[in-house]
């Protein structure tokens, strides 16, 4: 049997990874909440952002954590333009079309990455990434601690922005009442593009936090999109708080599953959560709509 110390260490590790999952899932849930579609391009855009962080590091030597504002801003710009020029235009306001367009985007981005970057996995070596810090019974990688704090700070900042700013209020208004939003003079199309941009900016930030302790390859997005989708379903589609709680639950489940059942069998935890939540509470923990 595993000792409590190992379980505790596993839990802490899961929480640390969970915070990055939260960031990825917050982007997905925000896009869902406003556009009412699953952004199938989420994983491939995360992969693209990881390549951006990688190439920035390789060409200029800039630490991915320092490149975060740049990659996040780039993510916002890319998301905004993608919505304006591709998604919004091709879907002509029909939600079900948006879904197909994002699926098409995912396929294009992944194949383009394979073509331009090759199939090799790439890693970033930052000198301090290997350092560990002793927290209770666990020796935790410094990189993971920093990314944990940064991910939570970013989520809090985004939460405040959505709650307080006029743009944030417009986003929430459009999410639940498009017609009402039009009638107070909100630019609904621009709000869609801004929301999509913020969702992709979250990916940009997550990519920078992930890459020092991970790797990137053209298929890197797959694992994360499944995880993020599970989190969003668990927390409740479109719920910010749900993404937060769901991210930590999934992070810990994954980490403890790996400890108890081994690396590969431990992966069963995530689909299991997915199935259980669909059976027991299809609206998710904090979902208002089924």
């Amino acid at each position, binding site marked *: 049997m595993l000792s409590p110390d190992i379980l505790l260490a596993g839990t802490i590790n899961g929480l640390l990874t969970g915070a990055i999952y939260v960031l990825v899932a917050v982007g997905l849930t925000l896009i869902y909440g406003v556009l009412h579609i699953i952004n199938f391009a989420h994983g491939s855009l995360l992969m693209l952002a990881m390549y951006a962080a990688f190439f920035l590091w390789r060409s200029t030597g800039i630490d991915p954590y320092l490149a975060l504002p740049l990659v996040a801003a780039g993510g916002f710009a890319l998301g905004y333009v993608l919505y304006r020029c591709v998604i919004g235009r091709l879907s002509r306001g029909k939600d079900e079309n948006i879904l197909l367009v994002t699926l098409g985007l995912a396929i294009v981005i992944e194949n383009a990455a394979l073509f331009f970057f090759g199939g090799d996995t790439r890693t970033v070596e930052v000198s301090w990434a290997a350092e560990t810090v002793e927290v209770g019974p666990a020796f935790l990688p410094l990189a993971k601690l920093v990314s944990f704090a940064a991910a939570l700070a970013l989520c809090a900042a985004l939460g405040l922005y959505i709650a307080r700013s006029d743009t944030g209020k417009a986003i*929430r208004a459009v999410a639940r009442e498009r*017609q009402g939003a039009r*009638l*107070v003079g909100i630019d609904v199309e621009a709000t869609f593009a801004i929301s999509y941009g913020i969702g992709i900016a979250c990916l940009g930030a997550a990519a920078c936090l992930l890459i020092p302790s991970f790797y990137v390859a053209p298929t890197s997005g797959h694992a994360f999109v499944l995880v993020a989708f599970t989190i969003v379903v668990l927390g409740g589609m479109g719920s910010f708080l749900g993404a937060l709680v769901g991210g930590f639950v999934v992070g810990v489940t994954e980490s403890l599953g790996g400890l108890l059942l081994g690396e590969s069998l431990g992966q069963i935890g995530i689909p299991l959560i997915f199935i259980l939540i669909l059976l027991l509470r299809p609206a998710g923990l904090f979902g208002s709509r089924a």
Partner: protein
Amino acid sequence: MLEVRGLHAGYGALEILRGVDLDVGAGEIVALLGSNGVGKTTLNNAICGILRPTAGRIAFAGEDITRASAMAIVASGLIQVPEGRRVFPDMSVRENLELGSYRRGRGRRSANLERVVAVFPRLAERFAQKAATLSGGEQQMLAIGRALMGEPRLLILDEPSLGLSPRLVEEMFALIGRLNRDGLAVLLVEQNVVESLAIARRAYVLENGVFAMQGDAVALAADPALRRAYLGM
């Protein structure tokens, strides 16, 4: 102030409005009457830039707004309180009101907030509550309050009495009268013919995509054809 000429509008191949002419002058209450499903909301939405007209011309305060965006129309002071209220359900009463000044009147937001609260004291008691938790009457007040936050020059009210108790319907019409006495022009869309004709100066009756009757509200109220068709007399 509002000038609609030869307006055609519909949904795809389905033409709902087949050439309507309508005017609202400064300071007027004009009633737009007609049975359910005849196209009153369609006309509102065409005026407000939500629905593209297929033909005709709309001008507001001397400017052509036929092809203007909903945003530009709100910015010019033509503001609609839609059928079914369309308040933001998961946002607080205060946030709903604040969003009323998203496009217009933003600089005077706090002064206007006080003004709206003076009109609807009940909203002040519910400031922090989510709009979805309000009663139907309160939601209607909120929808009107939100529109007032945008400093309308012409207010379009789409069936404001729908779903309200008879006492609240009385209050609603009294309120519309008060707002109008302060100088606000109102286009009042209603199925409540008697009350509407009582406060309006002029009225239009929509039937089969055109105005079957129009004119002075007092004269219309006495018109035997109208009384037969809409009041069952």
